[in-house]
C-alpha cells in the first residue's frame, strides 16, 4: 500500500494530491531558506495565522453574495489579503514602535487568529444549510480534495519555484550579507518585500494541504536541515527544496497508505526526522562529527600537557592523561616517560618555548594567536622564522 502510494499507483486523485504536496514542499523549502538566512523564520508564523480571518471573511462574502462559500480560489484570495495586512502590521509594529519583531509577530499572530476564530463561530451560526468545514484549514485536509484544488496548489507551487529562480541572485545576496547588498545597489526593502510575498504565496497555497498552524514547518524545517550540510547559499536552497519535496512525498504517501493518518502532520514529522538525522550525522556541523572533533582535541591537549609535565619532571596526576600516554607507548604505568616519551617530551617543550617567544614578538603576534595547545609551531611559521626564534632561545641547556 505504501509502495503504491509512493510510486503514484493509488489512483488519479491521490496521485495528484501527492504531486501537489511535493511541489508545495519544494516551493516552501527554497523560499524558507531566504527567510531563515535573514533570521526572520517566525515571521511566517504570523503570516500563517493571519490567513484565518481572511478565510472567514471570504466565506461570509461568498455566501452572502449567493455563491458556494467553499470555493477554494475565493477563500485563498481572502486569506492572502488578511495575511498581507498581518505582514504589514508586523513590519509597522517593529519599525515604527519600540516593540521588537518577536513581540510584533506574537501580537499579530494571536490577535488575527483570535478574530478568525470569532468569524468561524459567526459562520457556524449562519444558517447556510451546509457544513462550512473551514476548520480543515487549521490542520489541512487532503481527503476529498477536488481535482481543481489539487491543480491550483500544484500550479501555485510551480509558480513560486519559478519566481524564486528568477530572484535567486538578489535574494541570496540580501540574505547572505544585507549590508554589502545595499551598498552594491540592491534595494533591500524591495527584495525583502519580494521574499515576504513568496512566503505569503507558499503559506496560502499550503493552507489546504498542511493547514495554517503547521505550514510554517514546511518553511522552517527544510532550510534548517539543509544548513547542516553546506555553507553555500545556492546549495542550501537546492537541498532545502529537495528535503521539502522528499518530506512531502513521503508524508503524503504514508498518509494515503492507511486511514486516520492526516497528511499535514505526517509531512511535518517526516521533515523533522530528516532534520534529526542531519543534525546527528551531517559532516562538520553534525553532532557526531562535533563530538569526534571534540574528543580529538581533548586527546591532543592531554597528550601535550602530559609531555610538557614529563619534560619538566613534574608528576602527572590526571589518570586520563597517563592512560592516553601509555596507549601511545610514551609513558609507563607510574607516569614516568619511556624512551620515545622522553624524546617527544623534549620536542614538546621546545615547541612550547618557541610559541612563548612568538607571542612576545610583535610581528609574530597574529600567527601566535593560532596557539591552541596542540598545533605545532612548524605548521604556522616558516623555517626562517623558527630559526630566528631558536637563536633567541639560545643553545640547549644540560638536563639536570
Amino acid at each position, binding site marked *: 500500500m505504501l509502495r503504491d502510494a509512493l510510486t503514484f499507483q493509488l489512483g488519479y486523485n491521490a496521485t495528484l494530491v501527492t504531486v501537489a504536496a511535493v511541489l508545495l514542499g519544494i516551493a516552501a523549502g527554497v523560499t524558507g531558506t531566504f527567510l*531563515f538566512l535573514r*533570521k*526572520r*523564520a*517566525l515571521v511566517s*508564523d504570523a503570516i500563517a495565522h493571519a490567513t484565518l480571518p481572511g478565510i472567514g471573511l471570504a466565506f461570509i462574502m461568498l455566501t452572502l453574495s449567493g455563491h458556494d462559500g467553499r470555493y477554494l480560489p475565493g477563500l485563498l484570495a481572502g486569506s492572502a489579503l488578511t495575511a498581507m495586512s498581518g505582514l504589514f502590521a508586523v513590519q*509597522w509594529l517593529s519599525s*515604527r*514602535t*519600540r*516593540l*521588537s519583531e*518577536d*513581540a*510584533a*509577530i*506574537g*501580537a*499579530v*499572530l*494571536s*490577535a*488575527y*487568529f*483570535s*478574530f*478568525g*476564530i*470569532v468569524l*468561524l*463561530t*459567526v459562520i*457556524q*451560526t449562519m444558517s447556510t444549510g451546509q457544513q462550512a468545514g473551514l*476548520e480543515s484549514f*487549521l*490542520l489541512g485536509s487532503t481527503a476529498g480534495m477536488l481535482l481543481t484544488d489539487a491543480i491550483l496548489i500544484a500550479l501555485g507551487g510551480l509558480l513560486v519555484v519559478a519566481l524564486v529562480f528568477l530572484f535567486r541572485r538578489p535574494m541570496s545576496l540580501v540574505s547572505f550579507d544585507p549590508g554589502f547588498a545595499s551598498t552594491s545597489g540592491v534595494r533591500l526593502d524591495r527584495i525583502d518585500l519580494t521574499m515576504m510575498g513568496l512566503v505569503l504565496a507558499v503559506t496560502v497555497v499550503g493552507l489546504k494541504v498542511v493547514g495554517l*498552524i*503547521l505550514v*510554517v*514547518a514546511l518553511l*522552517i*524545517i527544510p532550510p*534548517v536541515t539543509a*544548513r*547542516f550540510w553546506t555553507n553555500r547559499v545556492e546549495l542550501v536552497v537546492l537541498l532545502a527544496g529537495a528535503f521539502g519535496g522528499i518530506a512531502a512525498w513521503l508524508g503524503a504517501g504514508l498518509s494515503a497508505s492507511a486511514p*486516520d*493518518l*492526516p497528511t*499535514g*502532520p*505526517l509531512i*511535518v*514529522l517526516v*521533515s*523533522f526526522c530528516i*532534520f534529526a538525522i542531519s*543534525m546527528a550525522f551531517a559532516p562538520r*556541523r553534525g*553532532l557526531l562529527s562535533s563530538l569526534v572533533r571534540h574528543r580529538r582535541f581533548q586527546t591532543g591537549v592531554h597528550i601535550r600537557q602530559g609531555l610538557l609535565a614529563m619534560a619538566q619532571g613534574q608528576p602527572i596526576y590526571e589518570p586520563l592523561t597517563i592512560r592516553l600516554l601509555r596507549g601511545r607507548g610514551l609513558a609507563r604505568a607510574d607516569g614516568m616517560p619511556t624512551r620515545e616519551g622522553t624524546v617527544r617530551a623534549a620536542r614538546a617543550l621546545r615547541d612550547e618555548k618557541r610559541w612563548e617567544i612568538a607571542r612576545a614578538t610583535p610581528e609574530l603576534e597574529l600567527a601566535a594567536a593560532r596557539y591552541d595547545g596542540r598545533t605545532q609551531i612548524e605548521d604556522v611559521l616558516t623555517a626562517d622564522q623558527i630559526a630566528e626564534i631558536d637563536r633567541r632561545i639560545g643553545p640547549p641547556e644540560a638536563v639536570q
Partner: protein
Amino acid sequence: MNGADFVAFSLTPLLIGSLAALACALPGNFLVLRRQALVGDAISHVVLPGIVLAFLVTGTISTWPMLLGSAAAAIVAVVLIEAIRRFGRIEPGAAMGVVFTAMFAAGVLALEQSDTSGVHLDVEHALFGNLESLIWLDATGWESLLDPAALAGLPPELFRISLVTLAVVAGLAVFWRPLAISTFDEGFAKTLGLPVRAIGLGIVIASALAAVAAFDAVGSIIVIAMFICPPAAARLMTNRLGVQVAWSAVFALIAAVLGFTLAGSGPAWFGSENAVSAAGMVGTVAGVILACAALFGPARN
C-alpha cells in the same frame, strides 16, 4: 440579565478568564522585554502532545495527568530548543519553529490515531478552550457566594487558576528586584552576583506553569494573546517597569471582561441570538487594545 443568571452563567467564566489573563500577562512583561515573546506561543503549541500523551496513558480526561503531561511536554520543548540552538548552532527563532511545529504535529497525529470518540478531546477544543462552559450550576443568585453547598459546586478550574495566579503574583513580588535588574542589564546583574541563568529559566518555567493552567481553563489562543498583547501595549504606555506591569494587568482584565461580554451579548445587538467564541473575542479585544496603544501610546516610539 438578572443576578441569578449572572452568577450562574457569567460570574465564573469571567473570573476564570480574568485570572487566566492576569497569570499570563504578568510574566509576559518579562518575556516581551527579554525578546522571548514567542516562548508563550511555543509552549501553548507543545501542550497538545502532552495532553494527548496523558490521555493515552491514563485513558481518561482527568486534570492532574494532563497538567503533568503538558508540563513535561513544555520542559521537553525548552530542552530541545536549547539543544538545537546550542549544539546545532541554529538561531533561536528557527530552533523554536522546528521544535514546536514538530511536537504539535506529533500531538495531532497521536490524537487522530487514538480513539477519543468517547471523550471530549479534540484539537479545536485545545485551541479555543471552552470558557462559556465553565458555569456554576449550583448558584441561585448572589447569596450563593455565602452558601457552602453551592460553593462546593464551583468549577475546579477556578481553584487551579486562582492558585497559579496567586503563585505568579507572589513570585513577582518576592523576586521583583532581581527580575528587573537581570532583565534590563544582564551584565550588571552578573556583577551583583545574581544567578542570571536561573532567573531566565525561572521566568520561562513560571510562564509554562501559567500557560498550562490557563490552557486547562481557557484554551491556548487566550494564552498566546495574553502573554504578548497586554504587555506589549503596556510597553508603549510607559518607560517604568512597575507602571508597565500595572498597565498590562489593567489591559488584560479589560480584554478578558470586555471580550467575554462582547462575545455573549454583542451578537444580540446585530439581531443574532447566537454567541460567538469568547476566547476569540478576548484575543481580538487584546489585539485592538494593542493597536490603540501603538497608535496613541505616550511611549510608543
